[in-house]
């Protein structure tokens, strides 16, 4: 018995490695090795010619990182602007897409609703199309004389020239109250070579159109996650609350929402990870313009390397971006976990239900 088990194990070992080898080789070769190569490039003065490992390429330590982070200059200012733009994008998109997705899920989950399938299809369809196709469409919808501005003109307003308008929305709001120029204190050089006035500008009008696009394309995906979680809930809990005389809004806020916490966590994390990586839309649409207000770290990393041939700086930006994503994800996890440690086991059970949902779908 013992010997037979051993033999089987040996056979399994060979097959196990053989079966996973192709995947390990590909992931190693195209993920692990390249990351190490890029790490080296971010510490070197490679200009894109020849091999990054040739003897002409020099080790420059953290100079690429300091050019972006601490030395006043164009590289630093561009990075500062990209960071500001993306920060506003994240701050706008993540809450919006989460709330919209949650509301859609709750609405579509109504037991008595007719045409559920139609609504789910309508809300989810934008998520399956490519970012490129959606961006092309958005450039048309939001152009100066486009669909959106025509629609706005029906209520007697003049829409902006969306993708050409670099004004920050905070500045636009302030200008309605007659504040058109910054107080002197806000025009000093601020963090990363960007003045406080610029840091506080809010997302530009152009970026706002991209924010709407992101909500349009991702809310359907997240709606499905919330929907799966809602359907895994025990209806008795809500019925009990109804017996106790809780109104619909109260039931949602006090009973349903707390049970959705694990899904909320998943949605917020995926949202944070996704929004810090915005690239396809920028490449297809605005290419960082107008006035660099839609420049993002991911796109800046690409142009620094492939267009300006500053490979070290490009690689350094992508590692900083990586660090940002990791930090935000960890912070967000801590914030959600610390709020109520008591419900940890319940949450784990619910999390298991959430994660099981997609797998179940494939099993069916």
């Amino acid at each position, binding site marked *: 018995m013992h010997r037979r088990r051993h033999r089987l194990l040996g056979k399994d070992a060979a097959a*196990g490695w053989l079966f996973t080898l192709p995947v390990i080789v590909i992931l190693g070769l195209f993920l692990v090795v390249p990351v190490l190569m890029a790490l080296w490039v971010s510490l070197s003065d490679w200009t894109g010619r020849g091999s990054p490992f040739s003897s002409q390429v020099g080790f420059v330590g953290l100079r690429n990182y300091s050019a972006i982070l601490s030395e006043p200059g164009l590289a630093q200012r561009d990075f500062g602007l990209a960071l500001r733009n993306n920060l506003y994008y994240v701050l706008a998109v993540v809450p919006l897409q989460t709330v919209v997705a949650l509301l859609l899920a709750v609405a579509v989950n*109504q037991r008595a609703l007719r045409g559920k399938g139609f609504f789910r299809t309508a809300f989810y*369809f934008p998520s399956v199309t490519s970012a490129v196709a959606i961006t092309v469409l958005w450039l048309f919808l939001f152009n100066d004389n486009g669909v959106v501005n025509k629609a706005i003109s029906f209520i007697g307003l003049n829409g902006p020239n969306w993708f050409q308008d670099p004004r920050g929305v905070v500045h636009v709001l302030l200008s309605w109250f007659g504040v058109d120029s910054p107080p002197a204190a806000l025009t000093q050089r601020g963090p990363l070579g960007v003045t406080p006035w610029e840091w506080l500008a809010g997302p530009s009008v152009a970026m706002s159109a991209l924010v709407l696009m992101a909500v349009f394309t991702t809310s359907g995906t997240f709606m499905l996650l919330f929907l799966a979680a809602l359907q895994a809930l025990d209806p008795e809990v809500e019925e009990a609350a109804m017996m106790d005389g809780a109104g619909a809004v109260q039931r949602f806020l006090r009973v349903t929402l707390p049970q959705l916490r694990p899904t909320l966590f998943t949605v917020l994390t995926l949202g944070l990870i996704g929004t810090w990586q915005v690239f396809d839309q920028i490449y297809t649409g605005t290419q960082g313009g107008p006035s660099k207000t839609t420049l993002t770290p991911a796109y800046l990393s690409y142009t620094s390397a492939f267009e300006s041939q500053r490979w070290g700086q490009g690689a350094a930006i992508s590692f900083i971006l990586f660090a940002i994503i990791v930090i935000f994800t960890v912070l967000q996890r801590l914030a959600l976990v610390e709020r109520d440690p008591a419900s940890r086991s319940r949450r784990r059970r619910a999390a298991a239900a959430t994660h099981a949902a997609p797998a179940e779908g494939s099993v069916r």
Partner: protein
Amino acid sequence: MSTAVSTPAPAAGRRHRVPAGRGVAPVLWILLFLVAAIYIFPFLVQVVTSFKTEPDAASNPLSLVPETWTGAAYQRLFANSDFPTWIRNSFVVTLIVTLGRVFLNSLAGYALARLDFRGRGAVFALLIAVMAVPGVVLLIPKFLVVNTLGIYDSFAGMTVPLLADAAGIFIMKNFFESIPRSVEEQARIDGAGTFRTFWSIVLPMATPALMTIIILSFQGSWNELNHFIVSTQSPELTTLTKGVAQLASGQLSQGSQYPLKLAAATLMTLPVAVVFLIFQRRIMNTSLGAVKG
């Protein structure tokens, strides 16, 4: 978007005969319908505009009926541009990536679910770690290694790095774990080898999971952009996403040319739309991996 309301009018009329949602307040139902209209309207505009003339598209962007229907945009795409090459490349890449992923993901998924081998935990940990690396961070790294390996600007460089996909491996692993072990034990007792057991006994039982992988891989590789930007440069290897992106950003042409661009966007959306409409239920149950920024 006040006019979005009027768009699905025929559908609204048809629904009217049915009492609007028993138990659901009509207000909610109407509200939901308006939101749905906002989600659908852009795509109607896209398709209709692709059949408009340029002046018509510019002056009546909202209208859902072209002044004169014209297929000029489509004609130009096929007769006077590289569009057919882009389509071909997208199909070739999608086919290779999808087939490769189906095979490699199920192999690895089976090993992780069923085969006891030393280091399985480590392989699993590697996959988890790899899944956590954000794709955009890998733009420069991928170019470096593709270039160093000498497969830059080739179909190999475009497809091989996309062949392994951690999410797909997890889907397969989960599925294989749900199949009772007794099925394989029988085959093993009959003397079938590991690969044979996997290939002729277990894999055919995994059709539902394989369908999921096929759909997700198709959608993923058809819509992939940034990997192709950094792994190719020659026009003969341009895919739809890359070609249309350059068309949109005006790198290839002058002026707005909205009907042309929207025709291109419509055509590139068509295959995923068709797959989506056919496999709706399955896609909507497995959307976790496909989140855009």
